């Protein structure tokens, strides 16, 4: 190494040139990738919405096998987006995909907006609700597809920010956990009754098995479902009548 003690002037010139080169190349890279990554993000969330009705896509399709363009096409053709306020009234001119529940959570309860996706296949309509709550460490969230009887679950997806791998993180990683919810009933006497039971479900109509070692995450899922679905009750009642 033949590094010299350099003059301040040299150092400053060097640093300035380096900073400009770095900033310009990064800004260029960002411009180059921006459209692709925004599109990826959109497809990612649309995929997770469609995944809840995976069993009802028809023609034996599976969301995981669909290409990105097919996902967008299916979403455009078969999914209707509705935004609700807390009283269950439709707020016009808003797209459900633009609603971020983590932002809504910070608002006063009366001002919150709820996203609702309605998926249609040839025979039936599915209402896809979004919920958000807390797990052991951080936030957890999910989408729940309800069949047109407004009571039976067609499918769910969960995701989380920082649950323990192998324990709490299994709500997402292990397809068996969300899989259990398919066919469960949500409401009993007008209340949300679906829940995760530690040590194995008792009432098979409403309950699913908890994950051993992840009690707090599972309780978080129960709380999230019961509170989150209840927000949609006013709207579900109006369409039922």
């Amino acid at each position: 190494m033949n590094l010299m003690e350099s003059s301040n002037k040299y150092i400053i010139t060097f640093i300035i040139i380096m900073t400009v080169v770095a900033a310009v190349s990064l800004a260029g890279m960002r411009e180059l990738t921006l459209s692709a990554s925004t599109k990826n993000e959109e497809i990612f969330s649309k995929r997770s919405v469609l995944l809840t009705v995976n069993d009802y896509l028809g023609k034996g399709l599976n969301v995981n096998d669909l290409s990105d363009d097919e996902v967008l096409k299916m979403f455009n053709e078969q999914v209707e987006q509705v935004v609700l306020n807390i009283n269950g009234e439709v707020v016009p001119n808003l797209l459900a995909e633009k609603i971020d529940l983590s932002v809504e959570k910070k608002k006063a309860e009366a001002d919150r907006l709820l996203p609702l996706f309605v998926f249609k296949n040839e025979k039936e309509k599915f209402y896809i609700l979004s919920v958000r709550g807390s797990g052991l460490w951080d936030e957890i969230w999910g989408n729940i597809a309800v069949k047109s009887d407004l009571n039976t679950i067609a499918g769910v997806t969960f995701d989380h920010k920082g649950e323990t791998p192998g324990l709490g993180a299994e709500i997402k990683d292990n397809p068996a956990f969300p899989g259990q919810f398919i066919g469960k009933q949500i409401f009993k006497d007008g209340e949300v009754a679906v829940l995760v039971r530690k040590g194995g479900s008792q009432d098979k109509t409403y309950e699913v098995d908890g994950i051993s070692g992840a009690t707090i995450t599972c309780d978080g899922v129960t709380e999230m479902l019961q509170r989150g679905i209840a927000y949609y009750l006013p709207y579900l009642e109006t369409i039922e009548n």
Partner: protein
Amino acid sequence: MAEILEKVKIEEKEPFFGPKEKKLLLDPLMDINPITVQILGVCSALAITSLVYPSIVMAISVTLVTAFSNFFTSLVREYIPKQVRMIVQLVIIATLVTIVELGLKALNFPIWKQLSVYIGLIITNCIVMGRLEAYAMANKPWRSFLDGIGNGLGYGAILVIVAIIREILGKGTLFAGSPVEIKIIGNNATYLIDTTTSTMFGWYANNNLMVLPAAALFIIGILIWIHRTINPKLVDIS
């Protein structure tokens, strides 16, 4: 004058990819493996070794960053002012890591989401900085580039080995999340809820320890043990 000409000739004659270059590329894989021998880069990247697919992506990213940061540092090595050497190196690394991150976000979003902050942490992976200091600051760009690739791969090899062990024993799958997912376990769908109905080969139930961070440490400890038993000259005297 003649002397100088001769010197130039010799330099020109140096092969583009001779035995020395090959050694640069292959040595880090085994004899001077960055993790098991040099104790470099045993960093946060281990946290993503519970699955093989993200580990492979991570290994590729680290290799790219080590190779190119070695290359660029070596290019400007004679112009770097001594007093701000470290900042200059860090800026080069951070720029490259950001480029890799942006690229990954555009190419494979789910994996980008899974790796989250760990891509950024490549900046502080000691192996990148370590190679800059130890090699690129004193050698020519092309060789530095090869040295970077060799060390990145040596590091990546350990990541992937650890991940293969953890994923098979912990989840019963291989390459989960990638297009070529293999399910080794009989009935992957219900393993956690009822381990008795689905076991690997009929007798092995998934070991949850393998999914926990501690397992990565045990596996590396044992890998080092094996490596040093085969190659006793590496044993710590202290």
